């Protein structure tokens, strides 16, 4: 069975790509307020919106959400397209679509809010890293990345932090197939005492109880007074003596 996304791709593919002349004619009709022309212009460019959304999906967003966002960008481009400037609609629209998609990625795809300029730099850094690895087989240094992109080291570091923060997970996020555990449940407790330590403590405890029970009343009272532990009700007995 085909998913709704496949059906959407199929229906978007049914619309033919417009020629430059058709685009100008439709743009003129849109200017005159023809809503049918507007629909034709949008539907004919849905493939462009999908292809841009797919390119950005690797940065962490949900593809269906990104397609929605890129369609919003496409609608805006249709409204603002000026046929008199002589450009192809796809050239003009791709900027609006990219802007809509990147803005959505910045605001929605991370647990931590990252400034859009940092995220934009992060994307560039990520791309440079990938290309550098492919060319030289090793990771570029911060200085090299800065030189390639014309960014200061400070901005490169911020971009790296942005990449890390983007993949930050909520500790309460559900994980596993059944979703009955949170991410926090799977983290090891660094402060948990091992069984050895617990057993060791128990041994020491027994020894100390024995030692305390062997103290005279005089010694016990002095210890209690020095340690600020109130005296027991049992007047004559050392409280540490284990009774049968």
């Amino acid at each position, binding site marked *: 069975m085909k998913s709704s996304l496949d059906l959407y791709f199929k229906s978007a593919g049914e619309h033919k790509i417009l020629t430059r002349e058709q685009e100008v004619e439709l743009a003129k009709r849109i200017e005159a307020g023809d809503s049918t022309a507007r629909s034709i212009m949008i539907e004919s460019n849905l493939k462009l919106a999908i292809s841009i959304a797919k390119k950005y999906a690797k940065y962490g967003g949900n593809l269906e959400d990104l397609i929605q966002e890129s369609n919003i960008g496409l609608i805006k481009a249709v409204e603002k397209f000026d046929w008199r400037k002589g450009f192809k609609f796809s050239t003009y629209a791709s900027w609006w679509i990219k802007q809509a998609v990147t803005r959505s990625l910045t605001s929605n795809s991370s647990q931590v809010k990252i400034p859009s300029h940092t995220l934009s730099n992060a994307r560039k850094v990520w791309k440079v890293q990938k290309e550098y690895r492919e060319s030289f087989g090793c990771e570029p240094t911060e200085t090299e990345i800065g030189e390639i992109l014309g960014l200061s080291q400070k901005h490169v570091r911020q971009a790296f932090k942005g990449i890390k923060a983007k993949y930050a997970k909520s500790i309460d996020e559900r994980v596993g197939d059944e979703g009955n555990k949170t991410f926090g449940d799977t983290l090891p407790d660094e402060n948990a005492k091992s069984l050895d330590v617990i057993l060791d403590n128990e041994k020491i405890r027994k020894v100390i109880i024995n030692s305390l029970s062997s103290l005279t009343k005089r010694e*016990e*009272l002095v210890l209690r007074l*020095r340690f600020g532990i109130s005296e027991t009700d049992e007047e004559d007995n050392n409280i540490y003596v284990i009774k049968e």
Partner: protein
Amino acid sequence: MPMPKGFKSKNGYSTKKTLGGKSYHEISDLMTDQGYKMNHSTARNVFVSSLEKIARDVVKLYDVDADENSINRISKDPRFQDAIVSFMREIEYEKK
């Protein structure tokens, strides 16, 4: 008796403030009132010797060949005293 070199700076002293109890002068007064006549020096000696008894048993548990000097040093160590206070409070709490 002077403290061994480096002992104070490394671990500090246990004081009545850190232990939450009374000074040796106060202890000797209270003990005298209860019929255990003693001065502040005796109060301190009794306190240290009681802790030495406990330290000796703990050392035995670990099969450590410790001489009297080491036992004395352990008993005066604030970390050891803190541990004993914790155990005593725990036992006290459980008895209640």
